[in-house]
Structure formats: C-alpha cells, structure tokens
C-alpha cells in the first residue's frame, strides 16, 4: 500500500495506457449515460465534419481518475481531480495517462499530495492536462 512517507515530489505515477475501441466507447456511454452520437456514429454530422468519431473527453478524465486511484490504492483518497480537454483523441489510437507528484505537504494535520496528470497522444501532445489532490490518513 502506498504511504505518504514513501512519496517524493517529482515521483512519476505508474503510467496507464489505453487504446479505446468503438466497443470501449459504447461501454463508457452505457456506464456514464453520455450517448452523444459523436462517440459511436461515424455518420453523425459532427463526426463527419471532424472525420471520425472521437473519444469522450470524460472517458479521458475518468482514465486519469483511474491512473490516480491505481497509484493511491485504498490508503489515501482523491479529494479533487480536474482536467481540461485540449485535444481530441480518436478510437483505436493509444493514449497514455501519466502523472507526476508536484507538491507534498501537511496542512492542518492533513497529509496532502498534489499531482499533475495528463493524457498524451502518439505525437507526445498533452490532450487532457489536469491535476489531482490526494489526502492520506
């Protein structure tokens, strides 16, 4: 189990790689309730205009959550997680979720770790930059 004392600023989180297929996106639509055809229908006008269906921004957001959860385990807790959707990702293309510890502190007796997180596409572009705050007991 990850402990607060074992964390250092600059530590990299174990990366999480995803290559979402159309089926993965359909599963995410069902799980999240977001049935925007832009994520499953290649004939949807917006998809035709873009040239493809695209990965849900929130699928990438949730993947960043998974990245942090996998790292923290169940000793700590994610207090905040945020991201901005800066670039589109396409199905069947790999993106990598990464993170790095930005700050470690004790605030009012609470052990707090701030991490920068992002998804990165094959060209190395950060399509979904964000951050998270984790608290440890």
């Amino acid at each position, binding site marked *: 189990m990850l402990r607060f004392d074992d964390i250092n600023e600059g530590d990299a989180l174990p990366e999480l790689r*995803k290559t979402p297929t159309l089926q*993965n996106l359909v*599963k*995410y*639509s*069902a*799980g*999240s*309730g*977001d*049935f*925007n*055809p832009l994520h499953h229908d290649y004939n949807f*006008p*917006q998809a035709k205009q873009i040239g493809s269906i695209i990965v*849900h*921004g*929130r*699928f990438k*957001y*949730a*993947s*960043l*959550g*998974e990245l942090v*959860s*996998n790292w923290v385990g*169940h000793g700590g*807790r*994610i*207090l*905040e*997680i*945020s*991201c*901005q*959707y800066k670039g589109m990702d396409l199905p069947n293309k790999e993106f990598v979720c990464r993170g790095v510890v930005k700050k470690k502190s004790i605030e009012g007796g609470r052990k707090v770790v701030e991490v920068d997180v992002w998804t990165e596409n094959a060209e190395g572009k950060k399509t979904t930059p964000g951050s998270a705050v984790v608290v440890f007991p």
Partner: protein
Amino acid sequence: MAEQFELTDDMRAQIGKKSPPWDYEVTTTSVRMFARGVGYTDPVYFDVEAARKAGYRSLPAPPTYLGTPVFIPGRCSDTFSGPGEGLPRVDHGLKGILDGGTETEVFETICAGDNLVAVQELIDLKVGSSASIGKMLIMTADTSYTDKATGKLVARQRAQVIYY
C-alpha cells in the same frame, strides 16, 4: 462553424439560476457499469466483499463517476441522460457541442447505496473563438451533490461545455 455569436441580455440573465433538485441514486449496478466503461480492473468497484475488505461501506464510486444521473424518459435528455426540467435556458442556437473541462471535489467517499440530490447552477457564459471551430459559447455550471440522509454536501463538480 459560427461566424458571429454574441451574448444577449436574455442569456446573461440566466447566470446564477439554479435547477430544481434531482435524485442521483448511487447503486452497485451503476458503479459497476461506470467502472467497466472506464476499464477499471480493481475488484473494489465490482465486488462488494472486496470493497468491504478495503474499508468501504459498499462499492465506492470513482471520483469521476459524478454526472451519471437517474434517467427518466420524457424528463431527461435522451442523449445525455441528465434531467432537462427547470435548467437555466440559454437559447444559443449552436449545434456543435464539446466538453471543455471538468473539476470535481469529493468531500466524503461516495458508495453504492447513497442517495444524493443534485442541484445545478449556471455560473458563467463566455464567448471564445478558435481557428478550427470559429465562435464558441463556453458555458460553466456547478453541480452540488448533497447526501439525502445526512443533508451534507458530499461533492461538487464544475463543468465547462463548449457550444459552436
């Protein structure tokens, strides 16, 4: 692509308006469906026994789970599943929609079995533009999630949606 788009006084008048409360029931099935959709493999999101062993009351909702509402036909959006009633109305006429950003704060661990009540508030409207999509309307809304049983605010989510 919209060449021109401007905020009207009617649109601005919606800022600060709140939706009526809506039930967000967190269930074992809804947590499992979400976790499966994302691709989680940690058993705590699927197996109640594993969740209890890890110290949770039941399956914990991942922090990005919020936003998955109780769908009721005719009263919710068929596409996005969210409640459509009484939301601040911004008649912008733009057809394209993209997510801009999401920020979630979770004050208490949310687990299957929790009954939450969500209220959405329109926080901000902004006009932007980009080379690829032209003029856009950036709408920011906050949703607060309160536990029905305790009355405590358990989470807050800020979402930016881009219309173009």
